[in-house]
């Protein structure tokens, strides 16, 4: 079982979370060219190793998180709030 250390709630079972998707994607502007949207929605790398993902603590604090997970071992390397501002507050940056 994957256990994810939520920065708000502490370490929790993955069953409390909802997997979002590829956390490295920057979504294009709403009026961006079709090509950009096709890439953002459909093109995914099939990474063997550490990848960045979004997870939603849906049965917890309902915060979206950026999670670095090793696809081979399920090891979790880094977890932070996906929202930059919130992450900043959490880390005392603002």
């Amino acid at each position, binding site marked *: *079982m*994957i*256990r994810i250390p939520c920065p708000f709630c502490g370490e929790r*079972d993955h069953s409390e979370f*909802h997997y*979002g998707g590829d956390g490295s994607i920057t*979504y294009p*502007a*709403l*009026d*961006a*060219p*079709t090509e950009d*949207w*096709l890439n*953002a*929605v459909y093109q995914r790398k099939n990474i063997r190793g550490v990848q960045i993902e*979004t997870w*939603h603590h*849906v049965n917890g604090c*309902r*915060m*979206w998180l950026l999670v670095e997970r090793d696809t081979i*071992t*399920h*090891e979790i390397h880094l977890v932070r*709030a*996906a*929202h*930059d*501002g*919130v992450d900043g507050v959490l880390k005392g940056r603002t």
Partner: protein
Amino acid sequence: MSARRLSHGGRIDRAKTISFDWEGRKLTGYPGDTLASALMAGGQRVIGRSFKYHRPRGIMSAGVEESGAIVTLGDGAWRDPNVKATTQELYDGLVARGQHAWPNLHFDMGGVANFFSRFLPAGFYYKTFMGMPPFEWGSGTGWWMRYEKLIRRAAGMGTASRAPDPDAYEHAHAFCDLLVVGSGPAGLSAALVAAQSGLEVILVEQDFEFGGDLLNQANPESETKRIELLSAIHTAGVRTMSRTTAFGLYENSVAGLVERVTDHLANPADYLPRQRFWTVRSKQTVLATGALERLIAFGNNDRPGIMSANAGRTYLNRYGVLPGENIIVVTNNDSPYQPALELAKAGATVHLIDARTTTPELEKGCGVSVKSESIPIKAHGSKGIRGLESTASEGIQSCDLLLVSGGWSPVVHLLSHRGIKLVWDAQIACFLPGDTDAPIHVAGSAAGIWGSKDCGASGQVAAAKALGQLGHDIKLPTGKISRGSGWDLPIKPLYEIKVPGRKLQSFVDLQHDVTSEDVRLAHREGFQSVEHLKRFTTLGMATDQGKMGNIIGMALMAEALGKNIHDMGTTTFRPPYTPVSLGALGGRHVDSNFRPIRRTPLHDWNLSNGAIMTLAGLWDRPWYFPREGETIEDAYIREATVARKSVGLCDITSLGKIAVQGPDTAEFLNRIYTNPFAKLSIGKARYGIMLRDDGMVMDDGTCWRLTETDYFMTTTTAHAATVMVWLEELLQVRWPDLKVHVTSVSDQWAGCTVAGPNSRAVLEACVTDPTLISNETCPFMGVIETTLTGAIPSRIARISFSGELAFEVYVPSDYGPSMMDLLFNASKPLDGCLYGLEALGTLRIEKGHVTGAELDGRVTIEDAGLGKMASKQKSYIGDVLRKRPVMLDKNRARLVGIFPKDRTQRFNAGTILCKPGAISGFGEGWITGATYSPALGHWIGIGFISGGFESWVGQTVVVADPVRDQNINVEIVLPQMFDPAGKRSHD
């Protein structure tokens, strides 16, 4: 002669007799017995028949590795097949019988298969029946399916009861610093050191007693040591769990356990679950899981009366049963010498046959004769061993028990679950745990350490390592413990006995009847890897997972390939270590608890007003409100008619409700809805559609602007949770700059639709200020916040799903029943009524309004006939990709209405729309909803058909209903089947 109970010794309580039923006969045993030890003491040798050849089988071990004494327990709904007699505790009234035998164990018709065994090699069934004519692609598989049933019956697997499981099961959770698996000397020592250093420790043991191998010893010092250690760990605060198997190890030090709570009780208390499924989250794990003794493949090595040497010792020392009086022990290592001496001391004649040249020195007069450099060839006797042919003597040496030790295999299964490589150690001939950074430490014989004292020391080392990884400053105990410690002389690897020119039927996997010849056949067929060998021969795929014989299979395959076992590797073990019942996996999630039930705050009110309920997703919703003598059809037709003629009330609390608040809300809504939202004025609501990134429709609903920065969004019942998650993702991940906050308020507001020409009159009678409900102050899509009689706060919007003049009224949930009393009382003088989900469906189908049945994720906004809701003036989510050519293709299936040609006919939802004469495949479209329309006076439907209405004008279409064997001619109409101009709702 066979086994007999001794008058003294063992861990059984002779003061109390337990009686049980074996194959319809009454037998007795004692508390402390397993079913196997009681059967053995009762003189039973043939316990089951083998899976494929129906060969008689007996008790082969004293533990989880058992592959012979597999029985069915219990009767009726409690019938439980494939139970190992060697691990089942005896209790008063236990009922058991043998498996795989017809008509009975001693005369089994299936045994005929044994005579033909040379024609039934590995892969025989598949190769023969998969290739049966006719030979077209796919057909052969069909034949296999047909024969498989017969073959399975012949093979027999023990049959589970067809009745629902009468027992209850529980799921439980635990946390700890250290989980110790196994309570032998290594496990007890590890737990003690860790707990004394302040760790929270859980110790699990699959047996019903703690102690592991200490339970099998004859010397009283072992028992003293065991009691001391146990008492010390309890004092140190270790939580101990017996009858609990750690069946799997997962990421993050999570372990799955099954605790057998009542499987050993004659009359368990009602409140106890049969088993508990534990999820344990630990920080560190110590595996002190022990080792299992291997067999040797020689002729007829599966005969009843052949068992592991350690089992012989266990039955003697733990259960007080002398397993035989004339015993031969065959070995290739030191371990059975002690058992041999103990059996001789207990009164048996013991002849030891050792494959090695140098053997341990035994005292004169110890009662055990040793013959070195000798190996077994073939066992004689069919329903029980009578003698052994070996190189030790001429002819057949008679015996009534044959004990075998082919070496030991550490129980490394749990490590394998974690993907940790196993390494072959040629010196002690077994797979050992490889190096790992994982927080798992292996101790005792699981690490190839055989001596009891050294096992204890290795447990301390393992605990010290765990403490170190947790940041404790701990000195590792000194003194080297080497692998194989406990053996004075080295093992001589011995897997299979081959005699040139003779065919010996020797078994590698007894439970699946895999012979050494089958392994070689796999090699001849071209299989190279152990994983393929396993699948072709089914070696190690039975419920025992090849615990006694797997290594032998690996060794034979390696030999055939000219490799050594090290290069060959082993198969990957997967959870569960021992079988886990489906009931335990399910826990309490059965029947009505299979999933949660959601009820609205109006639930009791609905029930007390005569509602018949139905499940819609997780929601328990009113279906219809029958009056005396009404069928469901009578009721919904009446309800829909009343709503169109006068007024109807319907609980709509299950709709998703989201408070969307903040200065950027207008901009946010403008991005997520396809239609314009930037200029929605305060006090107005708007219908909106959301798309996904890929351009498909996600949901539809309404959004009400209450103040400058405060909006109230409603979603469909089906997509409420999805939409909430989506909005949170957009705000937190994609558009962090937007100052908007979303809060689910679905549970906070109870909702009722008031629909029909008299709906305004009803509301006027219920609100504090009736003038607010006029067409001027509350026009179509108008929103007002006001109070109902009795100062009930409410928000009301003039929204129509039914196509009538209608209002959605929301009040805080606790006021729900009061609101319903008010509204219902006001509607009674107008002959209004309550309506349920069925009439709701009728009203919306008549209007061609879509719901979750239509918005199934494969539908574009154009498909749903809502293309004009897609703004051309702005960009929004899904805007770009919805314009891909395939998405705009005019021939896509589009939303339509459906009328039967013959208006007296009816049809069903879920059916297929086809061209006449071309009723096949996917047809041209499908029907998502059908109802009798009181407004139109005949049956109507809603659905999708390629090209939509325009492509089918004037044509006849067939509704194909292959399940009911019914084809109805229909015509395609526009989806807005009633009041297409919407005059009624706009007043």
